[in-house]
């Protein structure tokens, strides 16, 4: 018997509250109440994810079938086949969801104060984006994973389209077009796994493969892995599908990009771990994942160097750092997976700092081009300080959080017998710093050559959000155990209790 509940109260609320908030704000469309409903809903989600205990939730309340005794049980500790759709909320899920909901809170406040009045549908998409990310990180069911990826892709399109420019329309429609291929690919992957094993629950699939094997159908397992990889690349923005996601990041408002990149990181972690659990013992699987990660890291950072707009530099750096996340998971060692998940947490935090600073630039008339020089540092020294600190954190400089996760990834690469990967990680860090400093110098530090709004009123929500996340980067950088104590038990415990 175990004390872990199969009906943990918080899991449905973490999903249902954003879903209901989305329905209500979409229906209200342009009413003032949207602001209050959105902020309260986001704060509720944050509060629930902070105070929630750990456990499972078996949606629709059907028990598991124990094949050894031919009985049904509501005890998740007994390894029975799950009849219900299973979600798990553990320490790793907690830290991911708490940080994502913190971003959601600030995103909602920034959007409701800074955007024109027809905000209902746009905010609905933001809430659903968060809900899809929370589902993906908690779900232990292949079919539901697919639905979450499918709806997640559609919501990404909505968030980008909501930005209303021709660039955003183009990026959104391109992303939607490819979702038809990659979403279907994931559906095929899970259909094949369902065919071989007979179960949609990930733990059941793993158990059936380990105990009964696949009856000589390893080829199908590889083909399923191929489709999984396709959706991993698409959902997380890995190379060679990175242009789709980078356009999405660059064409959205920065506050929305903060939620978008958090969703991508959660997808990368969740799908990556599921792939490791199901296909991890097959030859060449980890090698393929490592190869994709390295290509993504390098391509992202090199293209970031070529960009001439701060938004697009951040967009490509998000892509590049996604490769760091997946690299850790792809190494497949405990140290590597811990480093990968830790990198995801840190990445979400420091990229949010940079994106909030970018949002602040909109109050100077959208001075994000590196072709101009705006002298923002004189007009807003705190903003300049914040963006510099964010750049240091993103570049893995101590004492910020990026340093702690990158050092774990470097050690994990060396211990796994890949010292050359450690060199690539260092190269990515240095190049990140160069790409960011080049833009920061032009926009913030260089004497002004272009006119911008002299007395720009930056909302307090941006200032508070930016500095709160900077404090987080320093705290985690100095005391990494604050974050690692959520991640280490998850990895060392075999992902699920």
């Amino acid at each position: 018997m175990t004390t872990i509940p199969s009906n943990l109260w918080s899991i449905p609320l973490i999903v249902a509250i954003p879903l209901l908030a989305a329905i209500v704000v979409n229906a209200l469309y342009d009413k003032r109440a949207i602001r209050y409903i959105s902020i309260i809903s986001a704060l509720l989600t944050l509060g629930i994810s902070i105070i929630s205990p750990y456990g499972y939730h078996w949606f629709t309340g059907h028990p598991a079938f124990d094949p050894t005794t031919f009985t049904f049980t509501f005890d998740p500790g007994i390894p029975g086949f799950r009849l219900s759709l299973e979600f798990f909320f553990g320490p790793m899920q907690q830290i991911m969801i708490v940080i994502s909901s913190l971003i959601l809170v600030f995103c909602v406040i920034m959007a409701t104060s800074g955007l024109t009045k027809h905000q209902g549908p746009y905010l609905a998409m933001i809430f659903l984006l968060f809900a899809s990310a929370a589902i993906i990180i908690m779900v232990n069911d292949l079919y539901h994973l697919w639905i979450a990826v499918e709806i997640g892709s559609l919501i990404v399109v909505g968030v980008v389209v909501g930005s209303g420019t021709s660039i955003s329309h183009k990026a959104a429609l391109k992303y939607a077009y490819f979702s038809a291929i990659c979403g279907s690919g994931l559906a095929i992957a899970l259909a094949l796994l369902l065919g071989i094993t007979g179960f949609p629950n990930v733990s059941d699939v793993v158990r059936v493969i380990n105990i009964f094997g696949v009856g000589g159908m390893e080829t199908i397992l590889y083909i399923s892995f191929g489709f999984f990889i396709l959706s991993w690349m698409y959902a997380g923005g890995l190379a060679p599908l990175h242009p789709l996601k980078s356009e999405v990041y660059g064409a959205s408002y920065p506050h929305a990009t903060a939620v978008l990149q958090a969703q991508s990181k959660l997808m990368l972690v969740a799908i990556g771990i599921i792939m490791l659990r199901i296909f991890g013992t097959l030859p060449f699987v980890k090698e393929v994942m490592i190869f994709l990660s390295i290509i993504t890291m390098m391509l992202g950072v090199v293209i970031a160097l070529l960009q001439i707009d701060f938004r697009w530099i951040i967009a490509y750096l998000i892509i590049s750092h996604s490769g760091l996340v997946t690299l850790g998971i792809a190494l497949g060692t405990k140290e590597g997976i811990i480093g990968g998940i830790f990198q995801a947490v840190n990445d979400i935090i420091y990229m949010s700092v940079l994106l909030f600073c970018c949002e602040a630039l909109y109050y100077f008339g959208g001075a994000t081009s590196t072709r101009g020089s705006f002298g923002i540092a004189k007009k807003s020294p705190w903003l300049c300080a914040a963006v510099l600190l964010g750049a240091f954190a993103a570049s893995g400089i101590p004492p910020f959080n990026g340093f702690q996760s990158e050092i774990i990834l470097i050690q994990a690469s060396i211990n796994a017998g890949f010292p050359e990967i450690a060199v690539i990680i260092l190269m990515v860090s240095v190049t990140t710093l160069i790409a960011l400093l080049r833009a920061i110098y032009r926009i913030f530090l260089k004497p002004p050559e272009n006119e911008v709004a002299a007395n720009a009123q930056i909302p307090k929500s941006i200032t508070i959000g930016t500095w709160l996340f900077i404090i987080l980067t320093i705290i985690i950088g100095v005391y990494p155990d604050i974050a690692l104590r959520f991640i280490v038990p998850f990895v060392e415990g075999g992902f699920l209790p």
Partner: protein
Amino acid sequence: MNELRGKRGILAVIALLIIGIGFLSSLFELAGNVRPGVSQIYNSLAHLVAPNNIATWVYDWRGYDTLLETAVIYVGAVVSAMVIGRGVVQMKSCPQEPPAQSKPLEFHIETLTVILKYLGLPAAILLFSYGIMVVTASSTSGGGGFQCGVIMTAAYLLAAIFYGKNNPIRFGKRFIIGIGAAGLGGYTLLGLPGFLTTGFWQYNIGADVWGIAPSIMRFIFGEPFRLSLVLKEGVFFSSPGIIPLINVAEAFNVIGAIGLIYFAFIYGWQEE
């Protein structure tokens, strides 16, 4: 799709070929080797809920999946309307290019034949009635909320095609958005009774297969939908519980979602 011309196009074709061959070869290899797995357990229990196994699968065992799939339809409609201008936002502090606004379609109903002109309305009314029949019999037949929603919005579209913008079943945009919100919101909230009484979200307290719901809740959500199956071996009773209610919510959601897409494309979207 200029991006897919030249080398990229060739690469795309090769990639699609590889994917297609991989998928088809998997299907051939799987033929006759599919493991039944969880479906055996589902089928052995399905009769405890509704005579229609599909309804039980879709709205009970995998009812939460179906909620998210329902949300996909809703999101699809909201996003489609956003593409043509509904709810597009801009930063107050930073002027941008004006958002795209779609124009309404131009209708030419003068060329309609007399038969279509006079039979169109009865046909639309019949379709509406058929939709209601489909949703109310969802526990015992192959129909359901989705089919009802599609049939009813087909009637809406038919009326718009036959009679133009001023057709007899012209729904307003607030009505369409409201009915969609009621549908998806209703489906979501149908998880609450099970959650509050058993701790399991969307547990079917009317059917109460595992005997964990309070008797009063089983009575409220089970008795109104009780079914009797008369066989020569005797009369058997079961209740689909919350499944008929979910079907109605699903129908509302689909009417709202597809109706919004039709509305946005027929009448265009101009912000007041």
